[in-house]
């Protein structure tokens, strides 16, 4: 009895000694407050708000002078007349028939313009403002080319002030350059034939080596404040918005974000762009033959990101029913080409990039996975250079995706990303290299997640029904069926043929 109690106590003590970063990294990541990790700091929301408000106030103070100078420019005459018509409509001082705008009218116009510009620049920073003129009037001003150029210049000016770009810009450039250099070694580590490796490396070599620091401020976001980054496949450019650096200057975050964006070059969807690396067979519903298919399969499972297609998500919302709940066999449905979820493309042309990116979370999922692999390589080296402590490394990996804590997707909306908690816990926290870097004890792996091992057994060419939910790295049982969402005909003549089978354990 005594031995049993001692064993239990020892067990409890061992559990208590396991750092939370090893069992629930997301929980640590989402704790409030600033967190420094030896490479930089992840700033709390209140600190970010303070910084952005400070930058905004400084910019607001400059606006009247900048607007006044701009309106005096000879090239602004036409815009000035439009503005006088709109803002001065109720003022005798602004009789539009009078070609010389009076001083008093000019000040009415300038005030209106300042409010207009402030509204465009700081749309997320304050409460809704009263509108000085009707919507048509606003449109006649903000749609004018001269105004657009002016507003863009102000935006860039504010970006410089708010994001401390002179200091952080070179850090981002260095991390980007180093990760790009690491990419071929990562490709070499994958279980691929030499020809595929060569093609992948060629694609990576053609990525634009200059990172793009500017992002448009369109659509209710302001990327001076809101973090964002993306890979643009047609030009092979990586854009890294300055708002990201308002929240953090930690190299863990920068490396993870850039790794993710670079991961898009080889994700399940963009890998098919440029035609050189990979072409999906006509009867492949998405990436059944993706070069590392077991990673894709694993990411779709509940022990990883539990990736959803838009069709399956829609079904889960109540359209057509479907089994739900953790571990429940799910029907992953992919539309093979036409109908309400698909494009108007013929069924034989099953692969469609637009639908791939927008209707399936796999592009983001694979990028998360590659991003973690690349960031882990960079940070491992960097941590040695900087002699980071164990706590630094744990804090750093908690910082890496902390911005996902603010990622809120309405439950009624399908998003191309998996939940932030899964992206942190199932991907970063389960990565073996990252676990080693955080000095996580080998037996501290949480049971509900698994690392997606590229060297795990492969069911190439078709994911069938897996009988064992806990089968190695593959994940939950998953029925994959291809639906042809076309009312007029439901033929499989040109559609994919899915083989069902049991996964062979190692």
């Amino acid at each position: 009895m005594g031995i049993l109690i001692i064993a239990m106590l020892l067990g409890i003590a061992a559990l208590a000694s396991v750092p939370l970063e090893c069992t629930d990294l997301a929980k640590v990541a989402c704790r409030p407050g600033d967190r420094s990790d030896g490479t930089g700091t992840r700033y709390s929301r209140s600190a970010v708000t303070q910084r952005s408000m400070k930058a905004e106030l400084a910019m607001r103070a400059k606006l009247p002078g900048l607007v006044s100078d701009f309106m005096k420019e000879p090239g602004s005459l036409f815009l000035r007349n439009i503005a006088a018509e709109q803002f001065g409509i109720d003022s005798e001082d602004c009789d539009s028939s009078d070609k010389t705008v009076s001083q008093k009218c000019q000040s009415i116009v300038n005030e209106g313009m300042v409010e207009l510009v402030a509204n465009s620049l700081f749309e997320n920073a304050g409460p809704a403002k009263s509108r000085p003129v009707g919507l048509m009037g606003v449109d006649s001003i903000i749609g004018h080319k001269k105004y657009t150029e002016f507003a863009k210049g102000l935006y860039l000016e504010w970006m410089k002030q708010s994001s401390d770009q002179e200091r952080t810009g070179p850090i981002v450039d260095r991390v980007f350059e180093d990760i790009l250099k690491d990419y071929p070694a990562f490709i070499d580590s994958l279980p691929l034939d030499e020809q595929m490796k060569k093609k992948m490396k060629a694609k990576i070599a053609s990525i634009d080596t200059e990172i793009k620091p500017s992002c448009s401020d369109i659509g209710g976001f302001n990327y001076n404040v809101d973090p964002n980054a993306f890979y643009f496949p047609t030009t092979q450019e990586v854009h890294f918005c300055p708002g990201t650096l308002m929240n953090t200057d930690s190299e863990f975050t920068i490396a993870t974000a850039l790794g993710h964006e670079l991961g898009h070059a080889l994700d399940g969807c963009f890998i098919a762009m440029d035609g050189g690396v990979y072409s999906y067979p006509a009867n492949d519903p998405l990436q059944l033959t993706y070069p590392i298919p077991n990673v894709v399969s694993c990411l779709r499972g509940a022990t990883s990101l539990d990736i959803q297609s838009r069709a399956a998500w829609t079904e889960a919302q109540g359209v057509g029913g479907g089994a739900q709940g953790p571990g429940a066999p799910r029907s992953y449905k992919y539309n093979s080409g036409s109908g309400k979820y698909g494009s108007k493309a013929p069924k034989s042309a099953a692969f469609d990039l637009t639908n791939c990116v927008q209707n399936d979370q796999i592009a983001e999922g694979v990028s998360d996975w590659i991003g973690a692999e690349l960031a882990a390589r960079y940070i491992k080296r960097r941590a040695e250079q900087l002699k980071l402590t164990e706590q630094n490394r744990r804090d750093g990996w908690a910082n890496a995706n902390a911005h996902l804590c603010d990622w809120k997707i309405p439950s009624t909306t399908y998003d191309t990303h998996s939940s932030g908690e899964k992206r942190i816990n199932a991907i970063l926290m389960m990565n073996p290299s990252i676990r080693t870097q955080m000095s996580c004890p080998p037996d501290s792996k949480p049971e509900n997640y698994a690392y997606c091992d590229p060297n795990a057994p492969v069911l190439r060419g078709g994911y069938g029904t897996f009988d064992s939910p806990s089968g190695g790295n593959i994940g939950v049982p998953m029925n994959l069926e291809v639906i042809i969402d076309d009312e007029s005909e439901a033929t499989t003549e040109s559609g994919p043929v899915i083989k069902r089978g049991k996964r062979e354990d190692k």
Partner: protein
Amino acid sequence: MKSLRVFLILALVFGSSAFASQKPAKPSRKPAQVRGLRVEVQIGDRRSVFDVKPADIKGKYVMEFYNNAGKRATRPLTPDDYNYLLKKAQKLQGENNKREFCPQKFIRVVSSSGEKTGCDGAQNVLAKDINGLVRLLSYIL
């Protein structure tokens, strides 16, 4: 009495199987009528949606906004604003931009005149006009 029971059972079995074999009538799919206007903006990982809604039973027009950073907002519109926005959307001209060229940077407009897609930053007429529409909606926000 016994034969009547057998008859009833048989009638039930055949009746139900006959009923079951009937294919359920497919609900007739009518083209969805779009009232108002929806604009979706995808820039990298960020997605925002503007819904310009027709008058409710109280005769009020609103624009609803949400994005995947958790921001939600509702802004009142005057009938003139509403009509102006609708006309602006309906007047969008030009060939839809292919989203294959801008899968991470596009704007999609759905109105009663159909769906229009423009690549953000592209220099064609449709993309520029769509961009202008979003800037106006962002201004209202």
